[in-house]
């Protein structure tokens, strides 16, 4: 059994899926982010002045790109895997000799692909509004890749437990969006009172946004090493949970 071919097939299927419905998957983030740039960057941002030593527009660009990556990585896997459960075509993989890690890696890879592609599109849109400087390209690549993996894994776990389409929108609405908005996308957490800075540091998205911002601007509210450790811990925990759930056939096998 060639696991590489099986992995490539799942990846192909996932990429073909979101490319087939590009109007639903790739265009909306570009429009949303354009609105953010116009409203928060140009209109309001021009009155805010500097943030973290940079003009406000430059400051929020990395956070907005990361917000798109997070949302799209998560929702791609959540909706694709749940849809495969709902239409029962997940059985195509379950009856085949595909190891569970290949299923997890295939779906996560698909989520990462969409997250990163949307990230690129948003970056291109941002170029219309602001000049982008990159401080450390490797930090940018590593952060975006690992963060998209974290949220793709989260989307997979959500889809495994989901019993209806409503269930795959609950976590993005009630957990993911608040954490993202409070994760330092629009502000530096150094502006917060000390207590709320401490509270913010419990939010994993703070580390991801700041690591990504460091890659672009060279400034961060948290240590980059700590940020990568936090991301690594989340990947390890979520991958283990996803593997356990699929191995036990939770929501998949009766």
């Amino acid at each position: 059994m060639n696991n590489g071919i099986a992995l490539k097939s799942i990846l192909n299927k996932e990429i073909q899926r979101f490319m087939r419905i590009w109007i639903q998957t790739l265009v909306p983030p570009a429009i949303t982010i354009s609105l953010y740039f116009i409203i928060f960057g140009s209109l309001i941002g021009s009155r805010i002045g500097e943030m973290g030593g940079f003009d406000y527009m430059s400051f929020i660009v990395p956070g907005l790109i990361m917000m798109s990556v997070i949302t799209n990585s998560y929702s791609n896997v959540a909706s694709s895997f749940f849809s495969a459960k709902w239409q029962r075509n997940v059985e195509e993989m379950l009856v085949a000799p595909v190891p569970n890690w290949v299923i997890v890696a295939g779906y996560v890879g698909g989520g990462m692909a969409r997250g990163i592609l949307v990230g690129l599109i948003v970056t291109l849109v941002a170029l219309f509004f602001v000049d982008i400087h990159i401080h450390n390209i490797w930090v940018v690549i590593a952060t975006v890749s690992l963060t998209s993996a974290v949220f793709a894994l989260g989307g997979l776990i959500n889809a495994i437990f989901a019993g209806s389409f409503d269930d795959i929108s609950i976590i993005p609405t009630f957990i993911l969006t608040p954490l993202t908005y409070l994760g330092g996308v629009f502000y530096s957490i150094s502006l917060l009172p000390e207590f709320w800075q401490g509270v913010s540091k419990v939010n994993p998205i703070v580390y991801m946004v700041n690591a990504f911002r460091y890659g672009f601007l060279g400034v961060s509210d948290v240590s980059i090493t700590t940020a990568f450790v936090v991301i690594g811990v989340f990947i390890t925990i979520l991958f283990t949970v996803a593997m356990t759930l699929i191995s036990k056939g939770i929501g998949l096998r009766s």
Partner: protein
Amino acid sequence: MQKALAISGLEKTYKGGFQALKGIDLIVEKGDFFALLGPNGAGKSTTIGVITSLVNKTAGTVKVFGYDIATDLEKAKSFLGLVPQEFNFNQFEPLMNILVNQAGYYGVERKVAVQRAEKYLKQLELWDKRHDAARMLSGGMKRRLMIARALMHEPQILILDEPTAGVDIEVRRAMWDFLRELNKQGITIILTTHYLEEAEMLCRNIAIINHGVIVENTDMKSLLAQLDIESFVFDLVPTHKPVQLNDVISRQIDDHTLEVDLTKKQSLNQVFAQLSAQQIEVLSMRNKSNRLEALFVGLINRPTLSKEQTEEVTNNE
């Protein structure tokens, strides 16, 4: 003969406490065309679910070409191709993608997969639809798509769960020819069906399952040999005379229809002779109904014993 499938003491109890399988033993030889028959809820689909690992078993063993699904699941899976009862493909995906991706899950190179997809789509008359989304297909086409998909990795065993349900007669017969051809090529075929005629036409061996227990497991010829009585329907030139036949059981349905029950020892000649003597002309004659149906109804209505009860009876004997 090599065992393609060996099931022993298979039990399945679902979460709600419903015991779908109560200790099934079954052997399917390599190259067989095997029918698994039973009424709705008998345990057919659960059995297939366990074999293909879509249902977790509660107890017992399942071996595919000697590989236990509990210890060598991936190897066992590689021999199996499944055509499920319900449509279970992505309705929005084009046919070609469905087939090529499925082959990929079994490690088949894309180039080979594309060639095979072309072969099976042409054989199953779906080639013109290869770029269409699966939801655009008719019911019969969707069934054929699932057969093509199950063959993409060239399995040794093809399992079909009610493959011709809801398919018109013409397509059904074409599918039968296709399955016969596959079997001739050496593929072991296991079929569940509601259509008893289908089992009789295609299968060499048969197991009948009811309430999670195998109530009969034999070859088709032996099963049919159990039938003592066969019913015939005679279409007559309309007659106002009552038809009277000696030594055979008969029923005159109306002025042009007569039903006759014959045992194996009785010949049709004596019926024709008696009808001729009464100057009654026969226009045509046919079997009243599927013979297997009568036997099937008899078997599933027979009180069934659980495995423990069967062992108890055997030990007492």
